[in-house]
């Protein structure tokens, strides 16, 4: 999954008193089947950049293309359609819905695709098996351990089989054993042909052997190291 950004700028609340320029003229190219780490202090614009790559919103100016498809200036709806086909998200706090069961959480991205419930269950079952959480299938996600939560989040990001995985500070709330485990999962995914972008300032992540490239961000600008 080739990602190209050209002169991408993002200004929040443009024209208002609380205007913030989160990204300035960022140009970036991420190769297919690579694992890239975005590193920077808090507030430097990592999440913003990841959101633009992840089609959550539009840049204020500049061009974004993913796998050759121009995404800038696309209405919100088509960004969403693109996102749900090509991108799997793993969030900092995992964003698991605590009231739903583990299985339901994993199936969430499939629901609006109009897949048959049988097919959805099957896909979820395969992933739960792979990440060793099958025994937690019917548990409300609010009642499982941190490690299981993390695996649920990864399983959910993979359920629609996206070629691009984006993870926003995934290890921020994990101990080092779980962080290692997470990075090993990511390494497996890379081996399976996925493109992976992780934001982190955790050395455990940036120093991992599977990471191809570390990109430093400071005040919304890229610093090549």
């Amino acid at each position, binding site marked *: 999954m080739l990602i190209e950004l050209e002169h991408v700028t993002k200004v929040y*609340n*443009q*024209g208002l008193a609380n205007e913030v320029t989160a990204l300035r003229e960022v140009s970036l190219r991420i190769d297919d089947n690579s694992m890239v780490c975005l590193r920077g202090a808090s507030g430097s614009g990592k999440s913003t950049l990841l959101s633009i790559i992840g089609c959550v*919103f*539009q*840049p*204020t100016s500049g061009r974004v293309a993913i796998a050759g498809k121009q995404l800038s*200036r*696309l*209405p*919100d*709806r*088509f960004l969403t359609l693109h996102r749900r086909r090509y991108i799997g998200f793993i969030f900092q706090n995992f964003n698991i819905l605590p009231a739903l069961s583990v299985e339901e959480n994993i199936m969430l991205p499939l629901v609006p695709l109009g897949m048959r419930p049988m097919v959805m269950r099957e896909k979820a079952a395969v992933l739960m098996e792979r990440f060793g959480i099958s025994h937690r299938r019917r548990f409300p996600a609010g009642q499982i351990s941190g490690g299981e939560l993390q695996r649920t989040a990864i399983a959910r990001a993979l359920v629609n089989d996206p070629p691009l995985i984006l993870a926003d500070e995934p290890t921020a709330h994990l101990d080092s054993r779980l962080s290692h485990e997470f990075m090993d999962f990511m390494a497996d995914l890379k081996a399976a042909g996925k493109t992976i972008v992780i934001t982190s300032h955790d050395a455990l992540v940036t120093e991992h052997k599977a990471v191809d490239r570390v990109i430093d961000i400071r005040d919304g600008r890229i610093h090549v190291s």
Partner: protein
Amino acid sequence: MFLDSWSIALVICGLVVFFMMGFAARSAVRVLLYWDPDSDSGRQIKLENEIWLTSTLVECALGVQILSLTVFVLAADHFSGAIVGAMCATGSLLANDFGVPALTVKIGGVFLYGFWIVLHQLDIRSERYPLVRLKYIYLLTLLPLLVLDLSLGMMYIAGLEPDIITSCCAVVFGEAVGGGTNLFAGFSHFLSLLLLYGSTALLFILGGLLLAWRRIGLVVVFGGVWLWFFLLALVVITTLFSSYVYAMPFHKCPFCILKPEYYYIGFAIYGLLFTGAHLGMSVAVTEPLRQVVGLEEVTERFQRRATLWSLVLLALFTAVSSWHYLRYLLLGGQG
């Protein structure tokens, strides 16, 4: 007659449609003023979201409009009990000058809201939303119709005096009953049947041709014939088919077939006719969109599907509407 339950229901329907379309129009104005696809500003995001509000509102308004049409006819039927001389809905609709125009405008509303939804469905398939402006200008032009609909309905109810003498449908549509005015006098059975089944056959031929070999002229003719067929079918249902449903030669009423006594067959007949006609006409209405960049393929696919479905509905309509007539021919009116 404002204090009758049916009147109040009609007014509620009218107000609900008005309220929904009013809100949709508010979005329309904002979209027309501020739409800027090249911006990522909060306002543009909001406007993109408002597209879903308007489309949901118009879809709901269409639903309520269909409901309101049904309520209008049933209300007229109910009023006939209170109006001297009126024995069914026809009589009460003719009780003052606003009944028939109100009905016509309501039917028009169903079609026009339907076309808007077709436009919308096509528009959201293209990444540039090429029809945004057209769609919302169209929405704004519907406003006068909306006001007309509401006010005609109100004036109709206001003008209903319980002791006005009106005619009953046996006089209006019947053939020469005591010299009463006959709306469709001079239409012989044979001629109207010939016209109806002729048009049906024509539609099938045109539709088949369209599916195999499409030409712009053909598309327009197809839509036009559907419009003609729609009006013709209304007349033939009224003057001919209905009396076979009632099994009474002088009871010719387009509304009584909606009643439970006749197993609500009218809802099936009109439902098929309206949907079929709407799809058939949409084929012609959407023809200009094939010139719009980004919509060529989508429109073509829609037109093919609409053509096919309109023919399916036409076949069903022909079967259901002719059923009582055929049974009469075959069984000689027994059973």
